[in-house]
């Protein structure tokens, strides 16, 4: 039974997946436009998903055995496939209409302060709104507001921007031993908070920044330094005693403005990184550079794209670094 596969059709495209796979992950195996957007689901965080409702899809046929359609749209991130299931995502006007509604809901209390938000350019809510939203809001009331606060030396919380995906809570629960922050209050008064003045301080807590789909949790060491699309991401690694040490360095000129985990095409980190790598290791000399990070053509960061790795001068000056980056330098030479 180990290699048993379920046949599923998503927007008319057949795919075979292992039992227990969710509709969303089945769609990711196909890839492309039929992959439902996910603002709260995060494959590396247990229990995540189901909350934002952006990934709603229509199950037009339940399974081969029971072909009845499901009565309501379902969250594709938390619904597992059945053999013979037929799913409609972008081919269903109902789904698109519902998604438009969800995006509108997510935006009614959002400050739309993209011009001053560090997340702009790599914000999933921004992408979602471009794709599914409407250009004008129908919401005419005062938005819910909170004061931005520092939670710890390195992390800034802009609760106004939060969409309550709970990812950061799962990070603290699953990656650290002492969760200091959580969701307090309820309904649209719910907020991410430490409740009492309490600094988030833990070897892995910086990952909350990477998992945050919006600009609610940002890196204070990168704050207002540059728009992301003016920075150049380069994959690098180092021998880190705490984490995998595999990161992306975001360069502006010769300066590393910030360090993040490497992210895949669904904006999920490949491996969580420790706070020492993220906040305290910002000299090129600390890293072995690999290659330019691949950036989706749709991303605004790609506007500044470059295929050729232009090694920062420091590498040329330092023999040790030259050796460490030998392979990369050779490739750069070849590409020239």
């Amino acid at each position: 039974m180990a290699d048993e596969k379920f046949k599923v059709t998503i927007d008319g495209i057949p795919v075979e997946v292992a039992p227990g796979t969710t509709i969303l992950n089945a769609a990711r195996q196909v890839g492309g436009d039929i992959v439902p957007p996910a603002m709260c689901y995060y494959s590396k965080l247990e229990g995540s998903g189901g909350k934002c409702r952006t990934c709603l899809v229509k199950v037009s046929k339940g399974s081969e055995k029971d072909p009845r359609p499901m009565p309501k749209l379902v969250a594709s991130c938390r619904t597992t496939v059945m053999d013979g299931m037929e799913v409609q995502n972008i081919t269903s006007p109902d789904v698109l209409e519902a998604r438009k509604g969800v995006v509108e809901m997510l935006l009614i209390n959002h400050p739309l302060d993209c011009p001053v938000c560090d997340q702009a350019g790599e914000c999933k809510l921004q992408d979602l709104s471009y794709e599914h939203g409407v250009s004008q809001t129908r919401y005419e009331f005062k938005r819910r507001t909170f004061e931005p606060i520092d939670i710890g030396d390195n992390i800034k919380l802009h609760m106004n921007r939060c969409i309550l995906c709970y990812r950061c809570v799962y990070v603290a629960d699953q990656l650290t031993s002492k969760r200091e922050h959580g969701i307090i209050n309820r309904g649209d008064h719910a907020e991410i908070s430490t409740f009492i003045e309490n600094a988030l301080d833990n070897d892995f807590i910086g990952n909350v920044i990477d998992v945050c789909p919006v600009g609610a949790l940002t890196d204070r060491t990168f704050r207002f330094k540059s728009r992301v699309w003016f920075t150049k991401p380069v994959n690098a690694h180092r021998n880190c005693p705490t984490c995998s040490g595999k990161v992306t360095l975001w360069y502006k000129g010769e300066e590393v403005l910030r360090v993040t985990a490497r992210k895949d095409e669904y904006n999920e980190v490949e491996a969580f990184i420790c706070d020492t790598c993220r906040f305290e290791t910002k000299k090129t000399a600390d890293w072995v550079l690999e290659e330019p990070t691949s950036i989706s053509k749709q991303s605004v960061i790609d506007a500044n794209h470059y295929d050729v790795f232009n090694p920062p001068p420091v590498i040329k000056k330092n023999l040790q670094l030259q050796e460490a980056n030998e392979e990369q330098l050779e490739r750069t030479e070849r590409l020239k």
Partner: protein
Amino acid sequence: MLSVKENTTVEFSLTLLDKFAETVARYPEGRQKSALLPILHLVQAEYGWLSVDAMDKVAAYLDIRPIEVYEVASFYTMFFLQPKGKYVLEICRTGPCCLVGAERMMQHIEDKLGVKEGEVTADGLFSWRGVECLAACGYAPVLQIGPEYTFYENLTEEKVDQLVDELKQKAQTK
């Protein structure tokens, strides 16, 4: 973040700790977090509200993170995270009660006590607030007063006046 105006430190009495233990015994081994809501009720009945220190001590007792207590206490409307009056009049403000005059009764309570919803009277005796359906719609309008949540049904202006006066007297004689 909530503004936590005061943080009264507490020391749970042995009687209270006995009640905690009795509560925890209702659940399977390792599921002591289930006792959180009953224990918060016990603590609030004792001190009138839940200070951060009280919540931290509950967390320590149940061997959970303090934030887990804050999360829960702030989710449920019965828990007070700020000090309140000795008597908190909680009047139902949901549909069926409003059909038979709950809004008028709320106005009357405000006038009678001379404080707005959520505020405490100068003598520290009273607070009042509108709460959602108390499941007593057939006896509307209704109000309740903790910690035993005694019910007062079919309210009229006279009944409210009488109740407030009685509570004032009760507080004085104590």
